[in-house]
């Protein structure tokens, strides 16, 4: 039941979004872990077309990553256990950040630590890049490292304390990327909001597993990994919707299996102010351009003149009339 009048000229559609004071020309970003530090994609398209880039997760010191095999494709998705391999905060600031900053897109630096102090140390280290970093996207949800990581995103009080400690050491706004594996996503989102996070990214990968029946070994060396891709989109939409309904003023960046403009619009209707494309970048390095184009055309077709007006505008089904046994 769309209320606006008929189709519009796609070029007239206003896709701009405000995310916690950050003005985005449109909502299409790319997700952490799926875009490296930007460079591998620069040969495929002009990255300035993106609203923003979330970097590979950065830790205080470099990490070599997990044993192999690290990835396995599953139905409409993939499992990964890369192990948060990254160059570390120092090298990132020195060698990777200048390239991203020069693009002029919104730079979201994803970060994590192996323990509480490492999170704080990483936030403090990255603060030195505050002139060129728009958002610190704090990963409290990666299922791949054995200690730290996952626990922080599972218990509201723990997440709250950690986010508060990081917020205290940096001037860069912090957006917390939450785990779909937590029991109560609304409670976690509320906890990190009250700790000073300006928004949340929903969702990280869903913990999963696959087995090779011939060798009887897990398909991943670490046994479990993170499931991404279209397979997790319904889970992501549900969580975005739940959090938005409970905390309508908390900006949400939505992600999980997005590969079309229609997918992106679903996330906006569920309550996301911007979206990130993840796994689809691997198969189609220019996918963000297509999603943006499809989103613009779809908005025009549906009479959505201003995308920001429909954030969270998913409509409930009307209740059926009360049932009564028929009497003849």
């Amino acid at each position, binding site marked *: 039941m769309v209320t606006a009048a008929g189709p519009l000229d796609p070029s007239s559609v206003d896709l701009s979004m405000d995310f916690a004071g950050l003005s985005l020309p449109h909502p299409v970003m790319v997700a952490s872990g799926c875009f490296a530090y930007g460079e591998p994609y620069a040969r495929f398209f002009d990255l300035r077309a993106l609203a923003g880039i979330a970097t590979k997760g950065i830790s205080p010191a470099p990490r*070599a990553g997990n044993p*192999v095999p690290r*990835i396995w494709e599953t139905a409409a998705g993939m499992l990964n256990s890369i192990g948060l391999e990254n160059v570390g905060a120092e090298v990132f600031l020195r060698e990777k950040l200048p390239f991203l900053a020069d693009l002029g897109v919104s730079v979201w630096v994803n970060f994590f630590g192996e323990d509480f102090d490492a999170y704080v140390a990483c936030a403090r280290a990255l603060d030195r890049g505050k002139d060129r970093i728009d958002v610190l996207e704090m990963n409290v949800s990666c299922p791949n490292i054995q200690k730290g990581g996952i626990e922080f995103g599972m218990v509201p009080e723990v997440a709250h304390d950690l986010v508060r400690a990081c917020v205290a050491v940096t001037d860069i706004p912090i957006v917390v990327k939450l785990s779909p594996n937590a029991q109560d996503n609304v409670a976690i989102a509320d906890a990190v909001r009250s700790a000073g996070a300006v928004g949340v990214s929903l969702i990280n990968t869903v913990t999963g597993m696959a087995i090779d029946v011939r060798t009887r070994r897990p398909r991943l060396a670490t046994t479990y990994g993170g499931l991404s891709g279209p397979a997790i989109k319904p889970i992501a939409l549900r969580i975005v919707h739940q959090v938005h309904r409970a905390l309508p003023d908390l900006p949400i960046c939505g992600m999980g299996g997005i590969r079309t403009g229609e997918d992106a619009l679903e996330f906006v209707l569920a309550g996301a102010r911007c979206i990130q494309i993840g796994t689809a970048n*691997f198969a189609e390095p220019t996918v963000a351009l297509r999603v943006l184009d499809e989103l613009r055309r779809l908005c025009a077709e549906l009479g959505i003149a201003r995308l920001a007006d429909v954030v969270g505008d998913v409509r409930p089904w009307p209740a059926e009339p009360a049932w009564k046994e028929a009497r003849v």
Partner: protein
Amino acid sequence: MLAPEDQPARPSSVAASDAAFFEGRLAERETLSGGYVRLVFAYAEGPDLRAVAPGRFVMVRGPWEEDPTGPRAFSILDAPASDRLEILLKVYGRGTRRLAAMPVGAPVTMTAPLGRGFDPTTADGPRRLLVAGGVGLPPLHLLARRAAAAGLSARIEFFYGGRNADDLVLVEPLCEAGIGVVLATEDGSRGVPGRVTVPLADRLARAARAGEAVEVCACGPEGMLRAVRSLALETGVPTQLCLEANMACGFGACLGCAVPVYGPRPYRYCCTDGPVFDAREVRW
């Protein structure tokens, strides 16, 4: 075992900068024996791969929506024209099954050329012993035909192994190019009975006795490559292995295709550092 300071000197990890993402269509499909299929893709806008280094590869994805999610990596078998590329496929799982079943004319998307291939064969370098097993044939097939086209077929010896006679495909073009081919099958139905590493070991022993300079280029199943690597380490013969790994992107973004290596870092990447690696470097 290789000490860190012995790690072969190679350029640091850089993604191939000449890769393009482009659309094409299946122009030709030839069913070969043993479940192998040769696919030819044509494209209007894409890279001219006629001079591509053997071992470089293409990511191919069919006209699918959500599933299978990713493309599949294939070593480039040939590029007969500036707007065509060929791959050799064997059905292993969901992706290869879908690709093999595509009708001629089906649209595909491709990313190519990716990775770092073998160096060209030279007139004054060591004699090259090429070792191919099963679906590892394409890079060495291309390498051998390139050498032949350059008048260097005498610098090449081709060792090609499979489970049985049906498993050996595209042998005739090699023979026609004047390349000496040693075939081996595990069931003895064609060529030397047993694994391809048996005649290779004999050849390496002969080279050692004669003081002949040789080098090995190999591609095939991991079991075969492990055996070739052992021979390389025992004999000290310079050996390059063309590896494969589960790969989501092919261009250095996903970090899924890590290869365990000796040296200052524990892993390198099959897609951007390889797929061709020095056998001594691989940490197997």
